[in-house]
């Protein structure tokens, strides 16, 4: 699967693993470790401006993040940045309060963004201070990794 993707490809997990389901991105990146030859797996933590620097290095990326999409708790969805508008209110514009969609927008406006970006997002059930995912998301792990793999395949087209 992965060998046929031209150029440099990465799977980037975003989120804070100490805030329950917010950490689904890094958790899935850890889960995929060793099973995606030729693909860079990146745990970018809470991301922020760092994402702009990382995006500049790749031709294709799948970004995994938790997102409030108005779906059922634990539901997973793959979409391109064009398919959504961000409703997130970045109140403080600090490095601790950054918006994924804005980072992608900056990267594109600077002319550095990968040609192909897909976002694999999971609707959180719980965002609070603890390291474990909610039961809903724990149950969905196999489905999420399969979805990320399908997203990776979709980058070819």
């Amino acid at each position: 699967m992965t060998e046929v993707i031209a150029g440099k490809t990465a799977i980037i997990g975003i989120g804070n693993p100490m805030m329950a389901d917010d950490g689904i991105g890094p958790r899935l990146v850890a889960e995929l470790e060793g099973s995606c030859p030729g693909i860079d797996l990146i745990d970018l933590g809470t991301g922020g401006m760092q994402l702009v620097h990382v995006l500049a290095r790749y031709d294709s990326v799948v970004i995994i993040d938790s997102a409030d999409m108005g779906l059922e708790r634990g539901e997973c969805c793959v979409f391109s940045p064009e398919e959504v508008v961000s409703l997130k209110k970045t109140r403080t514009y600090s490095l601790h309060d950054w918006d994924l969609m804005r980072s992608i927008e900056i990267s594109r406006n600077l002319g550095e963004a990968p040609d192909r970006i897909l976002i694999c997002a999971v609707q959180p059930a719980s965002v609070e201070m603890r390291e474990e995912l909610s039961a809903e998301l724990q149950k969905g792990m196999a489905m999420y990794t399969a979805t990320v793999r399908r997203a990776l395949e979709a980058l070819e087209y």
Partner: protein
Amino acid sequence: MAMDVGIHIEHLTRVEGHGDIFFNSKEGKVEKVQWHVTEAPRFFEAMVRGKSYVHLQPITSRICGICSIGHSLASLKATEAALGVQVSEETVLLRRLALHGENMQSHILHIGYLVAPDLFGVGSVFPMVATHKDAVLKIVGLHRLANFMSDLVCGRTTHPITLRLGGFSKVPADRELTDLKSRLEAAKPVISEVAGLLASVKGGIPDFNRETEYVGLVDDKLYALYDGAIGSTDTGEHPVNFYKSITNEYVVPQSTAKYTKHSRDSYFVGALARFNLNESKLSDFGRETAEVLGMKAPIHNPFMNTYAQMVEVADSVQDSIHIIDELLACGIKGDKAEVKVKAGRGISAVEVPRGILFHDYTIDSIGNCTKANCIIPTNQNHASIQQDMEAIGPSLVERPEKDIELTLEMLVRAYDPCISCSTHYAKVHFV
């Protein structure tokens, strides 16, 4: 006649962490102007109590995601002082290089992403990408270089993994340092251009001066960052071991963070303090950049802290090139000092992007920490922010409310305060 004004800025934007500003005026007189810090205390000093000396640096480096290199170095220096460990000259050079990487990272980020929007009259860095794309590309490029430098020397961009007690777990190869040097050389014209751009918008800096005490590390030869004595523009030099006689921490009702004071009601730490204390030790490139920005010590305008950061970016690049030359001339050996457990107390001071940082550990005979004290720069600046607000307040009462808000926000941002951390998740709507 001045309008009555009541301003409450809850959770000021473009600073790290949470702080509020209150400003009330009636019939042209300021009734209340206050800087509130609302973050919960984090108890790192209690967290390390009972922990082995080997865990002090990995834990305390997590105090800050921006200054994690500085916290690591302060922690390692204090632990090494307690255990009587002497590191090699090579280790000191590599640590200075690590600190320059962090200083550049943090300063560029503050100048480019957090303050520039005020100077260019926009709400955040996002619209600047459209209106000043070339400037943003330069800033992003410099930020990327600083990240590369931290990756190379410290093993990753934040929360370093190569910095260890007695030395480094991995040192860069000669060819990697040569590559870094050529990237730093190539960055100099870019820095000059960004400095020129900052100079062109200097008119947006409020004309406000409040002379105060400036505190930072000083050294006979260097623009002190990694080591030195405590310098004060009021009282001269003091040994680092007497840091408590400088900081004199106290609590105030409106803040969860402690305040500090020394010879006056407040003192200032950070790039402007260092510039005022150490201007004569700047490298040629640092001095040239100061000239481009029209800066000559002493400067008593706190808004100019951002400009002092720009001078330090240039100085860090030049000094890093010099350090790399020294390392290459001697050949990197990967020296590591022997560490033996013994009881003792160690105190350190390191200049991190926002000012002087102190770590103080007491370690028992089996190597466990029995007492710790960390005093971070932002806490040392809270009283100065408050005093500045009180001084500038009366000159603002005739101005429109939006102007008052912006001026007070810019004042706090100039100090580059770093108050805490939070969580993030995206919120989207399908179209």
